[in-house]
């Protein structure tokens, strides 16, 4: 066993840490307050190759491995979770499906501009009536006259409505299978397609500088060839995409937890009560010790899940463990960081209050904690 990161992994980590510290962290408060999508920052990240990390160079990516991508997400998320989720949803949910299932032609048409970061892409699975029950899709598409006619609605879709967004890949019911189950197919819907309506951005409690929208489809027509991979493969495809995405959300959560720990430790060393820094009180030290330990464990778990995937081994259970443990670790870390800050932690001037708001959705997006526990239980 070897826990040493490769030279490239270390360089990517160091570069992203430096970038997050210098370019993201100083703006996080303002981005959160204004709930404004940071285009200039995302363009900068695109130029540095951060939006196409795990894809081969021939498709415009950086050619890094999956763990490098996760480590980069941890560091970017340490700077700000909103920017992290923009990068994660684009890479894991938007671009990865093209890489895994796209035809050669689709890879060149869609993946290349995404990996280069010239465009963002969204993945629309969740619907008003199909959340945790993601197979309960009601959006349907009918093939008529060489075109898919799509009708239905999606909600909570990340990156769907930015000025840089190229489109969305959605799950839709395209018929019934012989066994009586719905036939689900992934369809590619470019922005601007008539009948594809992008709703107003939600007002959110956290991840406020990321873009989240409801979408609706009213007899929206796309060419027959806009199927991703094979017709009827949609369910299998998004189950695998979500497995990969969960490892990435685990990494992002570790970044948030680490940021909470960093703030808490610094503050505990500075804040004086009873004539000495509160860090000298064992009650505070124990909180910091617990945070540091859980962060380390959460990091190891996402490393392991990523490693299993890179070895070509099954990793569904470990991906759920990584996502579940890291998001709950981040939740406890953000909570304790506020506690260590006392009343100041409740004020917007301190980043820990933002962490506390941001962290909640880590236990919801890409499968709730309950869903993760159900997946783990199924694999025991």
């Amino acid at each position, binding site marked *: 066993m070897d826990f040493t990161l490769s030279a490239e992994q270390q360089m990517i980590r160091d*570069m992203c840490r430096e970038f997050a510290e210098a370019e993201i962290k100083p703006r996080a408060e303002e981005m959160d307050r204004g709930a404004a999508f940071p285009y200039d920052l995302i363009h900068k990240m695109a130029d540095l190759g*951060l939006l196409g990390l795990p894809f081969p*160079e021939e498709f415009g990516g950086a050619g*890094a491995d999956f763990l490098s991508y996760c480590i980069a997400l941890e560091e970017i998320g340490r700077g700000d979770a909103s920017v992290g989720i923009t990068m994660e949803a684009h890479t894991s949910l938007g671009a990865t499906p093209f890489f895994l299932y796209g035809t050669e032609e689709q890879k060149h048409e869609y993946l290349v501009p995404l990996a280069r970061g010239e465009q963002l892409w969204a993945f629309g699975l969740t619907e008003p009536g199909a959340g945790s029950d993601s197979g309960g899709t009601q959006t349907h598409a009918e093939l008529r006259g060489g075109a898919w006619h799509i009708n239905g609605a999606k909600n909570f879709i990340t990156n769907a409505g930015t000025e840089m967004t190229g489109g969305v890949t959605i799950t839709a019911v395209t018929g019934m299978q012989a066994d009586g189950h719905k036939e689900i197919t992934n369809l590619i819907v470019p922005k601007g397609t008539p009948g594809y309506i992008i709703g107003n951005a939600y007002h959110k409690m956290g991840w406020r500088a990321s873009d989240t929208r409801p979408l609706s489809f009213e007899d929206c027509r796309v060419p027959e060839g806009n199927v991703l991979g094979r017709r009827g493969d949609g369910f299998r495809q998004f189950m695998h995409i979500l497995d990969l995405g969960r490892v990435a959300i685990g990494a992002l959560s570790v970044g948030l937890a680490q940021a909470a720990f960093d703030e808490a430790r610094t503050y505990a060393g500075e804040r004086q009560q009873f004539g000495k820094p509160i860090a000298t009180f064992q009650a505070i030290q124990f909180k910091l010790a617990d945070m540091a330990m859980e962060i380390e464990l959460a990091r190891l778990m996402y490393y392991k899940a990523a490693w299993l995937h890179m070895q070509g081994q099954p990793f569904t259970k470990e991906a759920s463990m990584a996502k579940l443990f890291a998001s709950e670790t981040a939740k406890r870390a953000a909570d304790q960081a506020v506690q260590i800050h006392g009343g100041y932690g409740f004020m917007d001037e301190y980043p820990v209050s933002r962490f506390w708001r941001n962290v909640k959705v880590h236990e919801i997006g890409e499968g709730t904690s309950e869903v993760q526990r159900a997946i783990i239980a199924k694999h025991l």
Partner: protein
Amino acid sequence: MNIVACIKETPSTTAEKSFGPDMRLERRKEDAIPNPFDEYTIEEALRQQEKHAGSTVTILCMGPATATDTLRKALAMGGDRAVLVSDSALAGSDAIGTARVLAAALQKIGFDLALFGSAAADAYGGVVPSATAEFLGLPLLSYASKLDLSGDSTARIQRAAEIGYNEAEAPLPALVSVVKSINEPRYPSMKGIMASKKKPLDTFSLADLGLDPSSVGGAAARERAISSEKVSTQRKGEMYQGNEGAADRVVAFLIEQKVL
């Protein structure tokens, strides 16, 4: 045009520093980074390369065998290849010894423009560029805050002066040392990082450079560290407390310091 960026490996600025019994800084491989001042050196080399089509950038470092990692980090920013001069006989070299080695390596590589940082963040000597120029018998344009190469024949720099700046020029080949204000170093891109491993990296020994081991290293060093002391970080702050005249005293202090 052949551009060579000379960089040093230094301990990271945040690393714990300690000295060995011979008063040499203990260097830990894990703490090693490219000298922060040399990020400007590399950046300037890359910018000149972008301006002068067909140029090559070589990154040159004298350091321990493990400095290959540092050179890979430099190559992640850009550049075509790297050269490490490493030899056990080099341990303990002073600035003059280092300059002797760099001069020989530059001669072996061949160059039109050799770039240096203004100093290294560990020793802050700042004499290596001029000593190297002396060994080579070539001009040094020092402390450049702007560098222009006209054609392939002349280097012209600006150097900040108390008021405005001085201009200086020299025919190529020449050496130039740069200051921080010359540019804003880039972040290594993800592609740059992934490509860094594939770029050629040669290691030269003293024998490769035709240098006599007794002319370099600790034995030949004329510079010797005698003692060291921790910089006292205790600031002599003055505290004015309470409402009784504290503001007036602050104002008086600022006037005294010619701030107001």
